[in-house]
């Protein structure tokens, strides 16, 4: 049996691994994706992590991973299917049938892109619908695309796509953007970005590939011809596995303070899954450290 099983290999999970290793604990990290480092890998540039000015998120993730590997971290590839406690033992079931036991669990499964939840969205995934402009933008060079959202990601996606696409519709449900002013100004100044405000997409349609997005605005709907639809409407915490085990807030985050202690004894929440004000690499890393310290105290009195 492990002292600690760390679920997730993003900055919170990897930092927890570093601290667990230095504490001499028997532990392992469960990673959903082979050699994955979580959402940070997708950040084009990270300028607010001390000591790494000007790095890209992928490289920073690799550095964190290398650090954890050097200290002897055991990584287990697998997707957690279920988490349950029997007596004082945590049972972790993986989707491939694997089972693990631990005295304590650090839950650091991060967040995933939020879906629109409209007709056609999943059907046309990879056939026009994308959650990654950097990955798939090039396929829409010279074509018309739509970006959905009003935050930093949506606006930087729109700008990135506007360099190669013929035209970009930026569809946002409000009339103001949440994104920072620099980005908003650039988007407003771009010739080939058309703002569609106070509007929500209600359906994606087409043939083999997506061809049309239906937009509803003031109760009326219209169809807009697009080849690509880039969804950037925020993220949702991956906390479905602890519903009924830990306490969640109304938006799905696990209720826990800076010590990462949750309502379930022996379960510690670290990183983007936890209720907190700032969700960045630095606060994820801080959580990883705090979670191991709290878990250590729990293990000292473990029976």
């Amino acid at each position: 049996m492990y002292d600690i099983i760390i679920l997730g290999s993003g900055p919170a999970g990897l930092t927890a691994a570093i601290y667990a290793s230095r504490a001499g604990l028997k532990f392992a990290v469960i990673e959903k994706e082979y050699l994955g480092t979580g959402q940070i890998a997708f950040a084009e540039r990270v300028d607010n992590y001390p000591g790494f000015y000007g790095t890209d998120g992928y490289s920073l993730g690799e550095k964190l991973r290398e650090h954890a590997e050097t200290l002897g971290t055991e990584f287990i590839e697998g997707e957690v299917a279920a988490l349950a406690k029997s007596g004082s033992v945590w049972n972790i079931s993986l989707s491939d049938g694997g089972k693990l036991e631990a005295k304590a669990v650090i839950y650091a499964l991060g967040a995933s892109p939020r879906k629109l939840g409209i007709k056609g969205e999943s059907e046309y995934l990879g056939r026009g619908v994308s959650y990654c402009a950097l990955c798939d933008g090039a396929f829409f060079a010279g074509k018309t695309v739509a970006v959905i959202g009003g935050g930093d990601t949506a606006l930087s996606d729109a700008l990135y796509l506007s360099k190669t696409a013929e035209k970009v519709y930026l569809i946002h449900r409000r009339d103001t953007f949440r994104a920072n002013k620099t980005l908003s100004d650039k988007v407003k100044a771009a010739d080939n970005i058309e703002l569609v405000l106070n509007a929500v997409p209600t359906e994606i349609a087409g043939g083999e590939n997506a061809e049309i997005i239906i937009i509803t605005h003031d109760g009326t709907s219209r169809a807009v011809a697009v080849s690509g639809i880039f969804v950037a409407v925020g993220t949702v915490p991956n906390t479905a596995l602890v519903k009924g085990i830990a306490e969640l807030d109304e938006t799905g985050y696990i209720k826990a303070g800076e010590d990462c202690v949750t309502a379930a004894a022996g379960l510690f929440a670290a990183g983007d899954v936890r209720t907190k004000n700032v969700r960045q690499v630095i606060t994820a890393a801080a959580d990883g450290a705090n979670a191991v310290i709290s878990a250590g105290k729990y293990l000292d009195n473990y029976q």
Partner: protein
Amino acid sequence: MPARITAAEFETEVLGAEVPVLADFYSDSCIPCKRMSPILSQLETEYAGKLKIVKINTNFESDLTEKYGVLAAPTLILFKNGEEVSRIRGAVKKDEIIKIL
């Protein structure tokens, strides 16, 4: 590591190959593509002689990308005797690639 090929080599390296060919349509700015890279290298070794794996950079080979209607990176297309027999859109686990081979 699978070799990168150009459109000029596609005919002989992929369509005319004697073994099945898995073509990885990738791009440099795509993180899921980077994640797939070590998995494809493992498969190349494990299936040596039975399967060929090639990489096609979609930033440079827009004609091939367009011809095969690739709209997501990575896209893996399996060719047998010059014909597409299977396709995976987006990054997947190693087991899911093995399933189509």
